[in-house]
């Protein structure tokens, strides 16, 4: 069972990365325009450059 001593904290660490990713996205304004994002993914204007 000693393996738990580092496996559980490792799992927690991975979870924390997800949490920080979410908080970063929130602060970065990724959720400001959810509706617009669903349309923007269809536009090809970034390919023309």
């Amino acid at each position, binding site marked *: *069972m000693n393996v*738990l*001593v580092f496996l*559980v*904290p490792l*799992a*927690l660490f991975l*979870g*924390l990365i*997800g*949490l920080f990713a*979410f*908080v970063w996205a*929130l*602060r970065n304004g990724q*959720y*400001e*325009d*959810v*509706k*617009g994002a669903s*349309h923007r993914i269809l*536009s090809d*204007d970034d390919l023309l450059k």
Partner: protein
Amino acid sequence: MMAEDRDFSHFVRGPVDGLLTLDLIFENVDCAACFNDIEEKALALRGVELARVNVTWGRMTVAWREGEASAATVLDHLARCGYRAHPLQAQNAELIERDRTSQLLRCLAVASFAAMNVMLLSVSVWSGNVTDITPETRDFFHWLSALIALPAAAYAGQPFFHSAFMGLRARRVNMDVPISLGILLALGMSVVETALHGEQAYFDSALMLLAFLLLGRVLEQIMRQKTRVAAGNIAALKGRTAHRIQPDGSLIVVPVDVLAPGDEVLVRAGERAPADAVVISGASTLDESVITGETNPRSVSAGSSVHAGSLNFAGQLRLRVLKPGAASLIDDVAALIERAGEARSHYRRLADQASQIYAPMVHTAAAATAIGWIIAGASVHDALMTAISVLIITCPCALALAAPTVQVVAAGRLFRAGVFLNTPEALERLAGINTIVFDKTGTLTLPRPQLLNRSQTPEALLQAAANLCLSSRHPLAVALAACTRGEVLTQAREISGAGVEAFVGAERWRLGSAAFCDIPEGGHREAASASILYVRCGEAFAPLVMDQMLRHDAVATLARLRSEGFAVSILSGDHESAVRPVAAQLSVDDWRAGLKPADKIAALEAMKAAGKRVLMVGDGLNDAPALAAADASLSPMSAVDLAQAQADAVFLGERLAPVAEALSAARHARWLMRENLGLAVVYNAIAAPLAIAGYVTPLIAALAMSGSSILVTLNALRARAPSAGGATSADAPASSLSPSARPGASP
């Protein structure tokens, strides 16, 4: 119209790094995919560095290099591309809501993250407890849980702790007091148990509670933010500007908000007075229907006072501003509103009522449990453990979710139907209504006059009138343009105070007064309130009768309301001769005309004294006190700001059906809220005795709490479907703010 200087400095932000920023809102963009085109067009303009549309809120942010472009060039450029934009100022209240939403979302993220991880550890402990977990491993898991749970709860619990603290300081027990107490006790007891190498810890319960409760808060907050943004958009679309006369005599267009007392403004025919003012020079007739409900115009000349919002019919007026801002009052309307509003502030929300009964009951039960077990001979430790488990399991998870979830779903349904709720308790207040009082002008009738004799008018003349009216700013011509389809005649010119003239081939076309069209006066008058325009093409001529017309679905909506058991009456400030035919057409027996704001309140008070619950639907300044006095109130979007501010909800569009829709949604929502509260009560009735008897383990607490919360949330989703017999709401989407629904187009 582009010739005047416009002053947008009020709206422009910056410069930051040489970039000036402006927020815009579009008046005619309904397709979500158009934003691509708008962004491209805006970026094509020299100096524009950034153009980004926010489709969710229907807004755009533009930034340009200082000196290379200006707000005016950007707006003109977009207008040439076919997108009419209005500058927008993000209001303070909106920014506050935004910060609050993101704070709650962060709390929710932290709480959910922690709850998931702690649950992982807890499940291991639970399954280990019935199999072969070693005490060392269990302690390790418990300490790990504490390590996650304590900081997470300290961060994510802040909204509750803060609110509970504020409540207690005001000597009030709100819902957040039992919540905070439950969470803190659960955590405290778990830490003690962990230190004593106990088998049970409630870390997961505390965090799951937080996550569920935060979910309810987030939903509520997002709805509130949505409403606030929509209100900001509506205000910007109204685009209220004024022509200010500069000291050097030049004209500049400024937003109404920057006017100061003593400023001189010019109001041309077809424009609304931007503020309460006094006439310096000029003479005209004013339509004050939004202020008094009276449809007959009033003549004004030098020295007359003018109320903000009155529509200038004929000549140019030069005004001196007396009192800027939205608060323009008649007949001491402010004092009336204040007195009327007090009565309504006594309303207590369903959830608050529930928590007022709930909190003392739970705390008494917990205390009684502890004392009872000690008397029965249990150790103090065991007795306290049981008492705390009572507090945890009765922590009002389902109860706290019961009302907000329904509210959010129902408000979303109304939002799509074109009804915006101003206050959170609007739904509950609307649900209790059994009597509806309508104002006439602008509420039962459309805000603009309509063409009544379309079918009697020869097609050619009607088309000529439709073309000519586009060249005039006169309110009647603007109204005619709104209900006909014409093409602009480039050769047409407006003769101020008379009409529009154009030469088509060898013929002279004219649209205007009888004298202007060389037609003998009289003989065409239909109703006292009707105004008549004449159109003449060569020898042929026809009268065009313009009058206030009922909203298209007014008859049907009132019939539906009556069939649903509502008593309907009309209280109008207009003349009896104007109200009588409307009442007859709608078959409303109970109507009164010529009422002053105080009379309307008196009438409402009489109804309330007779035990009726009254909904007031009105749009005018004269309705504002009545809107505040009624048990609930609705305003059309075209209403004056002051009336809208008093209303519980605002509806968009030219139809009256949203009134019926709002009422049926509210009733359905209240039914579901009660159902949800009932479910929460049933849950507690089962869970609390188990806890008191000492049978509750962390596993049972987790199952019971999440189960009841999910049940309540699922039940709330039923508010989305229109109740049986409800009208479909799809044909008035909130996003299509048709120009005709707006009062007074901006210059």
